[in-house]
């Protein structure tokens, strides 16, 4: 799946030429960028996401203090020039902790989505392409997983695995996987009858080769939309599990856990739970706006509305 610069000029007209530059994954990306840039809400989403990712990668440079440095002299200090978000009950700088917290919360969200998307997409593509009893068995298992209230299942699994950030990520990834299986399967079912897939079959390509080279690359558009929307949800869910004590543990700076710790102080020290919670909200809004923007453009059911 290499990007070929020359592909733009030689790419034949759609439907969905696999592997061509501008129209990779069955999508005309130049059109997508143009449409995205014309929607102020989506641009706002991109700006938020860019800022969050910048905070995440540049945390050591941005954060003025060590997020775990105790300083009992300034415990529970109100926001000031020295501590813009104030300090917590052991004098740790909350601004630094919120910045570093993105590494736990956002990375956890991204990893969750990466796991459920890659596993779900592969299972779905294979299931849809092979069809028959394999497809039936896989889809019934997915029906069962989808029938659970997902947070409750994730909570029970996380409780059983024991409280830690990793043990919060895994259950959320499991409960979100069926959504990708369904999406990818639907895509595979439609793509299976395309001429280029038939041609590959005629030339004797193996099923794996066809799924990997033709089905997967061309079914990515709705899956990317779903994944972008899911990142916000995953960040929310990870922080919710941390908030109820099943995610990140002390002294890790994680937004949900910080709100949980700040809860005891919120009547007098409002800033303590305020800023980590705001970070969750703004980050989730950012990813949801980007996801919504992408969906409006890429979802065939919404196109032209």
């Amino acid at each position: 799946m290499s990007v070929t610069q020359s592909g733009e000029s030689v790419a034949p007209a759609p439907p969905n030429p696999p592997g061509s530059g501008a129209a990779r994954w069955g999508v005309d990306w130049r059109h997508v960028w143009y449409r995205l840039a014309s929607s102020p809400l989506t641009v706002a989403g991109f700006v938020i996401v860019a800022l969050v990712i910048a905070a995440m990668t540049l945390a050591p440079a941005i954060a003025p203090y060590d997020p775990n440095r105790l300083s009992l002299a300034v415990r529970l200090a109100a926001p000031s020039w020295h501590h813009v978000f104030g300090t917590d009950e052991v004098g740790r700088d909350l601004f630094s902790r919120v910045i570093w917290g993105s590494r736990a919360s956002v990375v956890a969200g991204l990893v969750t989505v990466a796991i459920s998307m890659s596993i779900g997409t592969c299972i779905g593509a294979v299931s849809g392409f092979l069809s028959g009893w394999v497809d039936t068995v896989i889809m019934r298992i997915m029906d069962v997983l989808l029938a659970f209230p997902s947070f409750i299942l994730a909570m029970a699994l996380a409780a059983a695995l024991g409280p830690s950030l990793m043990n919060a990520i895994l259950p959320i990834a499991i409960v979100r996987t069926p959504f990708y299986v369904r999406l990818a399967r639907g895509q595979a079912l439609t793509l299976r009858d395309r001429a280029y897939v038939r041609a590959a079959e005629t030339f004797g390509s193996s099923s794996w080769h066809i799924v990997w080279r033709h089905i997967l690359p061309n079914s990515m558009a709705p899956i990317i939309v779903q994944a972008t929307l899911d990142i916000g949800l995953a960040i929310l869910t990870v922080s919710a599990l941390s908030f109820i004590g099943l995610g990140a543990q002390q002294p890790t700076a994680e937004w949900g856990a910080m709100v949980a710790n700040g809860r005891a102080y919120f009547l007098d020290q409002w800033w303590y739970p305020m800023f980590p919670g705001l970070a969750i909200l703004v980050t989730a809004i950012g990813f949801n706006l980007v996801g919504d923007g992408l969906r409006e453009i890429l979802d065939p059911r919404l196109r032209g509305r």
Partner: protein
Amino acid sequence: MSLLQILCRRLMLSILVVFGVLVVTFITSRLIPGDPARLMAGEHASQETVRHMRHVLGLDEPLPRQFAGYLARLARGDLGVSIRTERPVIEDLRRFFPATIELSIVALLFAVAAGLPLGVAAAVYRDGWIDQVVRTVSVAGISMPAFWLALLLLDFFYNWLGILPGTGRLDEGVAAPPFITGMFTVDALLAGQGRTMYSAVTHIALPAFTLGFVNLGIIMRQIRSAMIEVLQEDYIRTARAGGLSAARIVFGHALRNALIPSVTMLGLLFGDLLYGAVLTETIFAWPGMGNYVIQSIGFLDFPSIMGFALVASLAYVLLNLAVDLSYMMLDPQIREIG
């Protein structure tokens, strides 16, 4: 396929799903770290006692037989005994159930009452200012950490303004109304106790708003997109051409058809309500199942956690079955096949 066949298929699927729920909760309860026999026998118990405990708990039997035993106990309504409260889990859940149902219903009523007209307005005046407001509020609702919103509201309305009570279901000194439904607002109304009713309503306002706000976004979004779709249908254009008033087109024709697909959403919303209830109840010390399970998590009280997960999942499956069946009855396209 006839209606009967569709019904049978749906019922078969539900049976499969219920079985799946039982298997998953059983496997999950086996994942729990540590030896339950040792946990129950106590830290200083002898090897002999632990072995005896394993036998009593049936942990020395092969897994399929353990699963059969698990099913047999469930059939008797036995979800185990809570480590924290030392009461049967089923009794605890029964006790905390009405508070959660009351909170969920009020939250859902609020979300529907606000979300329905706003979603319709956003679709009718698409891309207008009201649409922008609705879209912004829905994104905020979907992105909102419920536990954080709960803290903010509590701080603002209770701590700053002092116009709403903080936690619990009733003011101190106000006795609970006579038990009819277990929902204090309804019971107080039925018993004609004005003061109790007022106290119950002021107490449920903030938690219900928190829980409702998170679901408001989902409802508005669903109604908006369903309405946009319906408003582009040919029969709406025909109605317009025929000179029907805008109000009659929107409420008489479009909304009715937009509501049908939205009905299935109600069942799925119940899952979000449960999720939200777990997070909201703990902040407002609302004595419901969510609060119960959070306290159980603090104690690593696995029988309660698994009992709650099982009951919540079964309720969710059954509710969605009921919603799907009523959807079949509502949708003329499906109804007429039979």
